[in-house]
């Protein structure tokens, strides 16, 4: 930086020579302040989403920079919510980026007193085995009168109501084919 630039950039010089002799506004503006802009302006992409909390279905815009969610705010285009959010919806970024989120599989063996680590693939395989075993053990072909039952009452499921329709569809389809009847949801509660 040349001397001239340094002089011109010096707040005191600006204060003395500019429109802000008292140094309360334009002259006091720091470089950081002058360059400040909304972080959403530089987002790599914006995903149009829907709030995961209640059933009003408020529109959300999810701003992403370097594959990190940097901001979630109301979508002003939504005719349902017109860009507004409640405290929970407004906390969505904190929800998805919470340091308390579990991001690895945890396993508690029977009679265990602590959690252990487990590989996701192994966990999936173990669960598949257990499903098949429970099903084999509790399978009911027919009732006392010989009418078909085709089911197991040895497996149960309780789903939240933050699951997508597509997810619920696959859940119900797989469990039904498996003969697992006891599939329930928050909607009952």
């Amino acid at each position: 930086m040349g001397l001239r630039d340094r002089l011109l950039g010096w707040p005191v010089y600006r204060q003395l020579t500019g429109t802000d002799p008292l140094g309360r506004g334009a002259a006091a503006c720091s470089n950081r302040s002058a360059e400040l802009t909304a972080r959403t302006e530089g987002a790599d992409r914006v995903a149009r989403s829907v709030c995961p909390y209640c059933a009003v279905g408020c529109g959300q815009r999810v701003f992403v920079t370097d594959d990190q969610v940097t901001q979630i705010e109301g979508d002003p285009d939504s005719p349902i919510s017109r860009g507004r959010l409640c405290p929970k919806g407004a906390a969505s970024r904190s929800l998805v980026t919470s340091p308390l989120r579990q991001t690895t599989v945890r396993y508690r063996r029977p009679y265990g007193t602590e959690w252990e680590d487990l590989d996701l693939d192994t966990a999936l395989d173990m669960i598949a085995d257990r499903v098949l075993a429970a099903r084999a053990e509790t399978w009911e072909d027919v009732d006392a009168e010989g009418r078909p039952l085709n089911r197991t009452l040895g497996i149960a499921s309780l789903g939240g109501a933050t699951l997508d329709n597509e997810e619920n569809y696959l859940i119900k389809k797989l469990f039904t084919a498996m003969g697992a009847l006891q599939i329930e949801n928050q909607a009952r509660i």
Partner: protein
Amino acid sequence: MVDPPHRPAVPPQSSLPAADPATAAGWVDAPPRMGFFTDTSVCIGCKACEVACKEWNGVPTAGLDLLGMSYDNTGALTANSWRHVAFVEQPRPAGHGTASFAGNPTGDPAGPASAARSAGTVTQPGTEPGLLPGEPPAAARMTEFLGMPAAGPPGRTGSAEGRSDFRWLMMSDVCKHCTRAGCLDVCPTGALFRTEFGTVVVQEDICNGCGYCVSACPYGVIDRRVDDGRVWKCTLCYDRIGAGLTPACAQACPTESIQYGPLDELRERAAARVATLRERGETQARLYGHDPDDGVGGDGAFFLLLDEPEVYGLPPDPQVTTRDLPAMWRRAGLAALAMTAAAVGAFLGGRR
């Protein structure tokens, strides 16, 4: 077409910026002065403003304390809470319909008296050792409602015959962005500055944590953060509004209790709203902080209230703490010039 906005006269005796503080602070071709109008008559106390502010500005948590001040667990505007929703429970008519608890077998309202009375009935505070009920004791605590030292919480005393009337006031408080801002006047580092939008912002890269501004704020808004010592407060989302966006709190507000826009427009809208409410029988509806003739030259963030300002924990007649400063400034200016001349000399000299 509506009437042109009422533009109040600037007090002629003041040499400090009033109606157009941005221009007075040296901004050329400044945009219109921007601000908040918070209409408490439609506030539902959801605190979306508090959360949206924290999410955008990365404001850290203010603590996990149950305060027992109705649903207010934030307590006050602090360095870690730039919006604060106050809740006021009052045995007063809500101004419409039959009284809420008319016909119910109610006694005196909750307050120092009932708290003391119930406290007196407890001999054994717990079946197991544990926390004692309320510290300080509940009776004392309730008189400290909203931090106001008084015989009883404001707006909550004086009803002798039961409590059939009831209303619950909510208000989202925020930095007022005063026209004559004491904090800015006393800031020795230029960390506090007047933006081109007429708002008052702390520049975190300049602030050295001297704390002069803390005592200069007539509203008790500005506050130092314990861990880093610097002061923090509402910036009216300087970064967002510069990009043409709405501040985070106003954008989130579900009921448009918080409105953002050019101050002139907001003042006009607010005046109409007060008139409507008064027509509907809300005789207590009033504006607060809208008047350029008040002790701080009017606020950039002003409010529609349904009761006296004290009820919400607001000072009834705020005065800029530096009102005698103009004369001081003229003297200080000369001194500064002299010092600056010396400094420039040293700066240029340093290049040799």
